[in-house]
């Protein structure tokens, strides 16, 4: 064919040709168009879903508990807002509190989407715009992105317009925090809900990108178990500690160590979500995770103070601000790797690795800013191997020795200053008192519950390094801190959801409980364990992520097993699923969206309101952020709220200063439309709240069961949910719940084993009419059981409305 002349080639004829074209780029700008199939609100602006928000907020009214009753935002003030006073700009207390909450939410959302932007850019540069999104055997790859923006991403490049949308909206929201903008609390609240929704899009972008590019498990129920706990760290090896949430840099470190065959010479451990994602890295084909997990943010200061790490690498989010100071005291060089945290360190991104190592090993510099992650990949492991012998030779002493410990304990004058500042009011004085006699059991107790904030150190008038004392006295217990965590599986796949559908419908799986949030628990990891174990035994599906996922791996039962070993991890009742790190929280809302798309064929594309309406009325899911303290926890929870998913926060959650609570006693609040005919139908008051705080696990348990009740429950589902509600109330509170009868629509809703007994109570106490021969309720219930009724909050979805 070499003699074919150059020129135009024309194809004269094609016969039986099958051409498939994947994507055309270049000439035609691909533009999202509202097609016939698309929903009403692709890429909603700040006001697009306002009606939905207002309807949510009219049933679930904001309750504010100001921690500070002043506004100090501008130099007009500061302004005292107590006693219905307005500030100099005209803002009132409610408005300002709502604004504060909005700020908290968008701060959290910005943290996730900033992370998303960074990792998406980085991975797009590395793998190309056309790298496919590969997250498991699903048709619906990006439920949150698709529902909110209408974009159905297939490649990394497709995520770009989604993150741009989030950024643009966050800017709009942040603008309204400025003085002289929004005046009504309710619209600040609507904006907060908007920010929460954006957060789930941002999180989803981050996780889809990293799952697709970094070989993380793809909807894998068999994702491997990783070691977790300070006790599992081998202190005899040179140790490299990574802290933060963005695994991009650490992935390079792992690659370098594998490539050079030095992986077994370096002990690689992580704290916070970077740690979880390290255990997910390259695990999509199974295997042994490349790193160990030290634990949550609560272990950060403790791990540094242990003196074990030889080098610390930090990336972003939930990293203590004093890492550099703390580390420098112990000659641990710190490498910062991300714009968000730089600690004032010199930028060495363009320097030679040997030069940087020289400056750090010699102690000339305390740390380095290295934004080139390829450079980091080589620098960190080499530095670790060099630092370890140097630090050993220097005889770096971290915690006090035994004699010093005794001296420090004896210095305590029982002044109470430490306990006053302790977030969990831990009995430090008592520990000091009996510790003086060599009994360290109380210290071990304190260590177990301690969130590692270090405020006690600062408060001590005798300058006792209280945390060091606690840690030294608990060495024995710390050595035993070894557990297992299932590395995050990513999304719940479409086939997973189909397989479990029948149980969700039949009520044999009574609901989904999501244990998320940070690690500021009043009773250590035991609270979480108790909740998860109880609900798993009752066949609920328990989903978890981030810090909660880590802490669940830390508590072992009498057989020495963690819940990850005790319960399987499929998407089935009685299964415990770790979806992954913080950004994997988007898969929890994503699961609810998938249920709407799969079982009801709801068109979710750019169709937030209808999707949320389905979820709120049909899917029995409750989120629990037990130890929540970050702004991210606030934004994650608020995103769930906009979908109609209720969230409970633990005791410290009251410090978010706001709750969304319904009034079960106001009848007109509990009505929806029946989409078949547009008639109003009364419903039982559940979920009772969108965001609330509880003090104790005991109070929480029955609440979880109750708030899985939904208007659309069929009788089997309602019967099982009600059974658990009553049983949990009796088990943990010692009495039948006061309002149980309000959830009874017909005799078939009553728990089977107690049907007759309960019918008697209904007749006697509530005056209901019973046909005893047929054991049927003739009159009494205020809500009706009609499983074909189609509960909706949206009038426009009713027949004949449009």
């Amino acid at each position, binding site marked *: 064919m070499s003699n074919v002349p150059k020129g135009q080639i024309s194809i004269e004829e094609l016969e039986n040709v099958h051409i498939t074209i994947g994507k055309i780029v270049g000439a035609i700008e691909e533009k999202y168009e509202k097609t016939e199939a698309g929903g009403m609100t692709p890429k909603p602006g700040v006001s697009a879903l306002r009606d939905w928000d207002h309807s949510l907020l009219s049933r679930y009214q904001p309750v504010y508990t100001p921690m500070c009753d002043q506004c100090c935002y501008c130099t007009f003030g500061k302004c005292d807002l107590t006693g219905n006073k307005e500030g100099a700009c005209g803002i009132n207390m409610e408005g300002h509190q709502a604004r504060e909450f909005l700020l908290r939410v968008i701060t959290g959302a910005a943290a996730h989407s900033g992370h998303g932007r960074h990792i998406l850019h980085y991975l797009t540069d590395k793998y190309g715009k056309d790298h496919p999104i590969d997250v498991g055997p699903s048709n619906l790859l990006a439920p949150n992105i698709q529902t909110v923006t209408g974009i159905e991403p297939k490649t990394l490049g497709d995520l770009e317009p989604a993150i741009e949308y989030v950024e643009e909206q966050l800017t709009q929201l942040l603008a309204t925090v400025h003085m002289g903008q929004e005046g009504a609390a309710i619209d600040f609240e609507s904006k907060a809900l908007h920010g929460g929704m954006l957060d789930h899009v941002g999180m989803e972008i981050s996780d889809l990108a990293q799952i697709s590019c970094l070989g993380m498990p793809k909807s894998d129920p068999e994702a491997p178990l990783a070691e977790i706990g300070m006790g599992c760290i081998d202190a005899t090896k040179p140790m490299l500690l990574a802290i933060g949430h963005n695994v991009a840099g650490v992935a390079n470190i792992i690659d370098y160590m594998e490539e050079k065959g030095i992986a077994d010479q370096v002990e690689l451990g992580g704290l916070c979500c970077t740690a979880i994602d390290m255990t997910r890295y390259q695990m999509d084909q199974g295997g042994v995770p490349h790193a160990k997990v030290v634990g949550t943010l609560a272990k950060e200061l403790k791990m540094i103070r242990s003196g074990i790490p030889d080098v610390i690498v930090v990336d972003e989010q939930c990293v203590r601000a004093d890492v550099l100071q703390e580390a420098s005291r112990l000659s641990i060089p710190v490498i910062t790797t991300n714009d968000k945290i730089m600690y004032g360190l010199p930028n060495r991104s363009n320097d030679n690795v040997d030069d940087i190592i020289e400056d750090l090993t010699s102690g000339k510099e305390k740390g380095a800013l290295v934004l080139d992650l390829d450079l980091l990949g080589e620098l960190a492991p080499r530095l670790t191997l060099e630092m370890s012998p140097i630090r050993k030779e220097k005889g770096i002493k971290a915690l006090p020795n035994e004699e010093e410990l005794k001296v420090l304990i004896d210095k305590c004058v029982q002044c109470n200053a430490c306990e006053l500042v302790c977030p969990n009011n831990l009995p430090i004085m008592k520990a000091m008192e009996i510790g003086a006699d060599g009994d360290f059991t109380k210290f071990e107790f304190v260590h177990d519950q301690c969130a590692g904030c270090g405020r006690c150190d600062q408060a001590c008038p005798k300058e006792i390094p209280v945390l060091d004392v606690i840690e030294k006295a608990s060495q024995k217990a710390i050595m035993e801190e070894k557990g297992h965590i299932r590395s995050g599986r990513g999304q719940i796949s479409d086939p997973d959801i189909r397989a479990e559908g029948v149980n969700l*419908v039949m009520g044999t799986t009574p609901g989904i409980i999501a244990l998320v949030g940070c690690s500021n628990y009043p009773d250590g990891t035991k609270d979480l364990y108790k909740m998860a174990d109880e609900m798993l035994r009752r066949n609920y599906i328990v989903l978890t992520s981030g810090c909660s996922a880590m802490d669940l791996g830390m508590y072992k039962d009498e057989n020495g097993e963690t819940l990850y070993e005790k319960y399987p991890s499929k998407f089935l009742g009685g299964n415990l699923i770790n979806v992954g790190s913080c950004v994997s929280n988007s898969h929890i809302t994503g699961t609810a969206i998938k249920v709407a798309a799969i079982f009801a064929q709801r068109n979710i594309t750019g169709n937030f309101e209808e999707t949320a309406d389905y979820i709120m009325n049909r899917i029995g899911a409750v989120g629990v952020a037990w130890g929540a303290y970050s702004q991210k926890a606030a934004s994650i929870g608020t995103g769930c709220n906009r979908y109609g998913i209720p969230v409970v926060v633990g005791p410290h959650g009251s410090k978010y200063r706001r709750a969304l609570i319904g009034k079960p006693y106001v009848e007109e609040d509990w009505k929806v439309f029946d989409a078949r005919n547009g008639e109003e139908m009364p419903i039982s008051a559940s979920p009772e709240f969108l965001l609330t705080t509880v003090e104790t696990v005991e109070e929480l348990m029955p609440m979880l069961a109750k708030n899985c009740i939904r208007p659309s429950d069929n009788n089997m589902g309602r019967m099982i949910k009600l059974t658990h509600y009553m049983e949990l109330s009796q088990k943990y509170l010692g009495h039948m719940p006061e309002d149980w009868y309000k959830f009874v629509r017909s005799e078939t809703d009553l728990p089977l084993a107690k049907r007759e007994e309960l019918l008697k109570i209904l007749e006697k106490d509530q005056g209901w009419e019973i046909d005893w021969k047929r054991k049927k309720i003739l009159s009494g219930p205020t809500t009706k059981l009609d499983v074909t009724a189609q509960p909706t909050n949206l009038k426009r979805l009713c027949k004949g409305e449009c």
Partner: protein
Amino acid sequence: MAEEFPFEISPMFEGERIRKDGMFVELAGPKAVGFELVSATDMDEVEDGKFTLIGPDISEMEEGARYPFAMTYKIAGELVEADLESIVERRNHEFQNYIQGMMHLNQRDDIWVRIGKDAIEKGLTSFEQVAKAIMMLFKNELPFIEKVEAVYYTDEAEINKEIESIRDIYTGRDERTRNLHDEDVDTFYGCSLCASFAPTSVCVITPDRIALCGAINWFDGRAAAKVDPEGPQFAIPKGDVIDAESGEYTGVNEVAEKLSSGEYDRIRLHSFLEYPHTSCGCFEVVGYYIPEVDGIGWVDRDFTGTAPNGLQFSTMAGQTGGGKQVVGFLGIGVQYFRSPKFIQADGGWDRVVWMPKMLKDKVSEDIPDYIRDKIATEEDVTDVESLRNFLKDKDHPILERWEEEEEVEKEASAAPQAEFTAPQAGFTASQMQMPTNFAPSAPMVGGGGGNGGVKVILKNAKMSVDRIIIKKLD
């Protein structure tokens, strides 16, 4: 009520496993004889609430030992009938598992029961306590049971005396189930349980068609409708037969129209291509029409590969579901492969051309002998072309449907070979909701013509273009 028992009764104990070291006694099971039986009896032959034990009681049993075990219940009531026996019997399994400290596995003469040490510690001493609880639960759950009496056996000789006649009863029941067909009954049952998630789903349950989820058969429907005629399972009077072959009945159509709020008004129970049954969401298998061979392929949830049309289960499953009638895709339960009326309207098994190996093995016994080897799996073919060849080589009955098409081809030899055979059934292409890359490919003719250069003629070519980059000329 429940407080009278020395154990808790709750669905939370359903998944409770009693392992060897926590076990007080093992009853029946793989190494000892046993059975359970519920029989419908006349009212005057049942003494309500009575319990009889033949053989040693729990308190007389030796820890760690194994005993034979049988449970029989006589039930009576105005609405009680023999067809309900197996339904009530299955509840025995469920309810015994509700009891804390009891584990009940399997059914009929395969039962395997364990009682835990904890239950004994809490005061379980007699089978009477268990039987009383079960009888209470029977009556609460199924109020058509007006009287119930229980006889338990732990005496091996007594059990052996009964067991043969009991096995005959099981066999008799199975035959009745197997021989009961749509034409033998005048009532079908509808189930709306799914409506809590799939609002417009209408599930019609007939003797030849188990519910899509596989959890409710015609007998279950019958029992539930008796308990509560207005409940989620309800009777559908069959009405007149419109078409027996495809399974279309006036009664079903009326219900379909009502429950779908007028969305559709015809359902053919055993049809794939015309007015198929709706799909909810939890179907185990999805069937898909393959226009190139005019056949139907099936793919199940566990199959992670791609079907010959290049699509995965989840992609195809995404096309249907939500209680919508979608032509070209059909979700079913694995059990439906066992129905003698399996997609009868479309040719039944003769129309089936592809299944994943695992699924085919699972239902192998139900595939008619003459066609078993003619259905391809992923081990035989990878795409539509190789499927076509496979079917030709094996002389699959689908070939008969091609003959007409091939004749047309011969006549019009100048025209490009039609790759897409119009389906025989009367629906238009626009009715079919298929993924875009699934659409029949019409022959394409490259534009241009132009002058100079070369002419290219492509025949039987398959091009796959990952992406086309179009750049403006400077």
